[in-house]
């Protein structure tokens, strides 16, 4: 959104639910200062929600985790919801996902609980408005950065949310995602992993297990990382001198249970890694509920890169 655009409060938080965060693309160029990237845990669904709402790449949206959120529109709004099916209703009527819809003034938009996936993205035409902190509004509570208040707060009951007033120009592009683009997150996903430098330090048995096991998502799963439960992986290296960790890095602490690191991970760490999930596989994992099963597949970068580039080309200028 341009700096000149007008903002207005347009939505009231009737019930906050457990965790709703404002997220733009994330905070970049500051990781050398120990500041994490933040941004949507599921980049794929976030990108679709913005696109369908008629917003440019990077626009701030709400990331709604688990559900429990109730919002009331204070003016008519064009919106799109993509990602998890959290049983959303508009004044009690089911809301279609993955398409642009109109939310009338006074109507209550409610999110119940996960039907498929964990995180829904709500984009409003024009985008949510907040003062960027270190170049981004991405909300990282642990670092007290971003969000509507600038200090990393999640949504709270009674908050009134500002948006950039849409300029009224008709937006181009589709308003409904094709069927093949809509995800059913109930399926057990196969996640693409690009092997990293320490992969050879794992025992043969552990490498076999790593890629031939249905791993179960642990309760210890949040925006920092998702722990996977399964056979104990053994690595000849216990720990490394701390070094930068990229998105999707799959580290294995001494307990042998891998942790895939997501958007709010610490910037450096010292456990050996199997490698890194592709960005879209990290997105997919972020939609998994505790208890859900996932598999890891070792991949070369060629086809994964091609896939990711195609995805970005559809959304990014």
């Amino acid at each position, binding site marked *: 959104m341009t700096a000149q655009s007008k903002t207005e409060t347009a939505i009231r938080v009737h019930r906050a639910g457990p965790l709703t965060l404002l997220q733009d693309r994330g905070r*970049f*160029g*500051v*990781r*050398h*200062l*120990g*500041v994490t*990237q933040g941004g949507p845990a599921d980049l794929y669904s976030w990108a679709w929600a913005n696109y369908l709402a008629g917003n440019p790449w990077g626009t701030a949206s709400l990331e709604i985790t688990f559900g429990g959120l109730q919002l009331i529109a204070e003016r008519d709004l064009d919106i799109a919801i993509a990602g998890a099916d959290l049983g959303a209703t508009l004044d009690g009527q089911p809301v279609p996902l993955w398409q642009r819809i109109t939310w009338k003034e006074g109507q209550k938009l409610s999110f119940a609980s996960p039907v498929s996936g964990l995180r829904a993205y709500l984009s409003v035409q024009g985008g949510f408005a907040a003062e960027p*902190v*270190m170049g981004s509004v991405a909300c990282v509570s*642990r*670092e*007290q*950065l971003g969000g509507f208040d600038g200090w990393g707060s999640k949504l709270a009951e009674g908050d009134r949310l500002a948006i950039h007033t849409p300029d009224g120009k008709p937006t181009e592009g589709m308003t409904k995602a094709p069927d093949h683009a809509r995800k059913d997150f109930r399926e057990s996903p196969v996640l693409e992993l*690009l*092997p*990293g*430098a320490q992969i050879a330090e794992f025992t043969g048995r552990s490498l076999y297990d790593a890629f031939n096991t249905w791993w179960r998502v642990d309760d210890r799963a949040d925006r920092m990382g998702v722990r996977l439960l399964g056979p104990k992986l053994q690595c000849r290296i216990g720990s490394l*001198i*701390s*070094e*930068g*960790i*990229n*998105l*999707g*890095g799959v580290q294995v602490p001494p307990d042998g249970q891998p942790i895939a690191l997501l958007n709010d991970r*610490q*910037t*450096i*760490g010292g456990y050996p890694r199997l*490698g*890194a*999930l*592709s*960005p879209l596989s990290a997105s997919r994992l972020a939609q998994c509920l505790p208890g859900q099963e996932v598999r890891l597949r070792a991949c070369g*970068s060629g086809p*994964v*890169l091609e896939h*990711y*580039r195609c995805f*970005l*080309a559809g959304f*990014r200028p």
Partner: protein
Amino acid sequence: MTANPANALPRLESAGLDGWMVRLFEQIDEANLPWITALARQCESAFADALVDLVPSYTTLLVVFDPVRLSPSDARQKIAGLLADLKPDEDLGTGQVHELPTFYDPSVGPDLDRVSGHTGMTVEQVIDCHSNKTYRVFALGFAPGFAFMGLTDPRLECPRLDTPRKKVPVGSVAIAARQTAAYPTATPGGWNLLGRTSARLFDREREGFSLLRVGDQVRFVSVSREEFERQGGDTTPMEAAV
């Protein structure tokens, strides 16, 4: 630095679709830093718009790039080219030393006694030993602006607390193993607290945000309670601040 056979350093390792880990050294050493900061600066100009983030650390530099603007193989080639001609930064020997005014006192440094007991030094000696050395920033991480510095005098080596504190007050000056740090924000922490600095380590309104950067030199300067307060330091005792 010259190119080396397969297993030798420096080495480029895959760090996902959009990242390369440049492994320059095997061991922690202050002498690593001029090489790492030099490579980081060179990456900034060589990658220009295609650069997303750089994460320097003790022995490595993580380079994150935009895989649409630059393919992983092109990025790799660029870094390899920079490594071939790399010369260490020269300014570090004469560069500015950050002086962090520090109030060493049991009221804000509740582990002074523990460290004294562990090292066999008196509290006075612990303070002298900690403040008499110029440290280098090895890495930032854990929290925004949190700088891992070292190496401390071997006599000061002290393990972390068995149970980390839920909340360590802003400015707390701490040691663990042979490293030292100051907490830029109130966070959980398991290091031994020796005192508190009045320096603003992280400021979202300030250009550059963090007072300290990887490669910087730092001294802790012991100041009286009066001087600490005059500089805006918060003398709220540890128990009350938690």
